[in-house]
């Protein structure tokens, strides 16, 4: 475990030098929140727009950080042979993937906390003490699911294929999941099956004080299982070529 943590530390150090990553993970949701949080009144998913948009933007930054950055990096590091080089060390086989997920979790947590603080001090969101961490944890867990998907894509595809594939996946979950614009009507019948919608809806249900639907929670767990399954298949399939 010590080796895995040493690798995670080095990965974090790299990430602090990568500006592009922070633009999508932190800057984009912060700017959108500052621009739009006070522009709308009325309720979305049963809560104020400011509260909905807080959960929404936290999810945007977090899932984008877990998916986009990771998939491309993993694919490049596989192609360049860094994963292979690591296999020659005494690190256990799973260490590389685990460190990628831990790094995602660290950075997405930072972006979630920033957006939630904005909600509190800029978006006029008032919650009971326990609600803050529960909302943050919900978004955090849901975003981490996408790190597993990133592992699957990164191992399966070459770097030049990964770029368009992650973009398609990213925008699908962004639009179908109602991150871009809240779901209603026909779009909702499909969109409510996405993990991005499920995460935001659980968040707003917690804020509203309503009971959280079991279906949403089960949905997230099913997505997690699917993404982990894809990741395991992709990693195993490349065991001799990585």
């Amino acid at each position, binding site marked *: 475990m010590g*080796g895995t943590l*040493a*690798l995670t530390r*080095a990965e974090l*150090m*790299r990430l602090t*030098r*990568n500006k592009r990553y922070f633009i999508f993970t932190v800057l984009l949701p912060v700017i959108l929140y500052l621009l739009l949080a006070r522009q709308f009144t009325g309720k979305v998913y049963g809560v104020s727009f400011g509260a909905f948009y807080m959960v929404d933007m936290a999810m945007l930054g977090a899932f984008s950080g877990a998916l986009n950055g990771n998939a491309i990096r993993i694919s490049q*590091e596989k*192609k*360049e*042979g*860094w*994963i*292979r*080089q690591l*296999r*020659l*060390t*005494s*690190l*256990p086989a799973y260490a590389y993937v685990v460190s990628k997920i831990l790094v995602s979790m660290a950075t997405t947590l930072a972006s979630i906390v920033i957006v939630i603080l904005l909600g509190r001090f800029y978006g006029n969101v008032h919650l009971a003490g326990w609600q803050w961490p529960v909302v943050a944890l919900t978004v955090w867990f849901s975003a981490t699911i996408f790190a597993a998907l990133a592992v699957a894509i990164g191992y399966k595809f070459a770097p030049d294929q990964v770029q368009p594939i992650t973009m398609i996946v990213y925008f699908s979950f962004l639009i179908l999941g109602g991150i871009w614009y809240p779901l209603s009507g026909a779009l909702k019948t499909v969109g409510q099956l996405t993990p991005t919608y499920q995460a935001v809806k659980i968040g707003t249900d917690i804020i509203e004080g309503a009971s959280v639907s079991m279906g949403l929670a089960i949905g997230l767990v099913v997505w997690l299982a699917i993404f982990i399954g894809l990741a395991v298949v992709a990693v195993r399939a490349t065991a*001799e070529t990585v």
Partner: protein
Amino acid sequence: MSHYGTGSSTARRDGGTNGYGTDRDYQNTAVYASTGSTPVVSFVNVSKTYGSLKAVDGLNLDLRPGETTALLGPNGAGKSTSLDMLLALRKPTSGKITMFGSDPYHAVKSGRVGAMLQSGGLMPEVTVRELVTLVTTLHPKPEPIDLTLKRAGIDKFADQRVDRLSGGQTQRVRFALAICGKSELIVLDEPTTAMDVETRRLFWDSMKAEVAEGRTLLFATHYLEEADQAADRILVINRGRLLADGTPAEIKAKAGARRITFHLDRADEQFLLGLPGLVNVEVRRDFVQIQTSDSDATLYGVLDAGLRPRDIEVTGLGLEQAFIAITAEDDRANGTEETN
């Protein structure tokens, strides 16, 4: 002559008899090579097939402690595949590889092997020092980081970013990762690719210092000069099979260490084939070219038969010609002349 055998003579050029080099070096070997003459690595009938292609075909070999061995072969001979299997990156289709009495995976994970792969990459966006520090931290028996940087000759650019180095500098960083722990076996796959002549010389100097400590070294190369100068022992492989195994001098002798050429009217190939020391003969009209392991005896044989050839030339063959002769012979025996 279609068979060069796999001689097992292992005389070291430095004259050491204990397998560890000189007695002075022996003082430093306590950390390494404590297994006596038990092989560090052994391949028993190892094969690897990709679909219908046999990349490695029934390979048998042993590496003894303290020995520097070159794995020599043309591109596609199975060098990289063999090293990949040795390092547990690929599984043999059949056969068994043992390293330090255990399987390759456990030997690698216990830090007993340091390796530098052609296909091995470096983590980008970090400095050379940060990368070496990381990999050193992961090693069960780490060397001091500053020592590694110095030995690999990368201390001058230790604070530069890994992704901004030249090809030769990158190779030296890879080398640093192979020697950053007290590994008993060092495996290098074409280590001096992308290095200029001067860097290559510096590289081998630092490599020799590593070996002087009693480490076992296996390196793949297609620079014959390198194999000749650096190795105690050369394994020639082609088409995934071991063609020759011996000291550089023995390898040269096997292919016929000297070449004799002369002109002779009505040269009788059958007679020439019977000459002492002869390895190979080619007759084109009145021009005769002979490869021999004993040029004196061969030439006396010609003269004793009463023949009087003209324009006699005797030339020593380098390892390169020996290597070409051995692999070309193998290709002929397999009925597929090399086309490139």
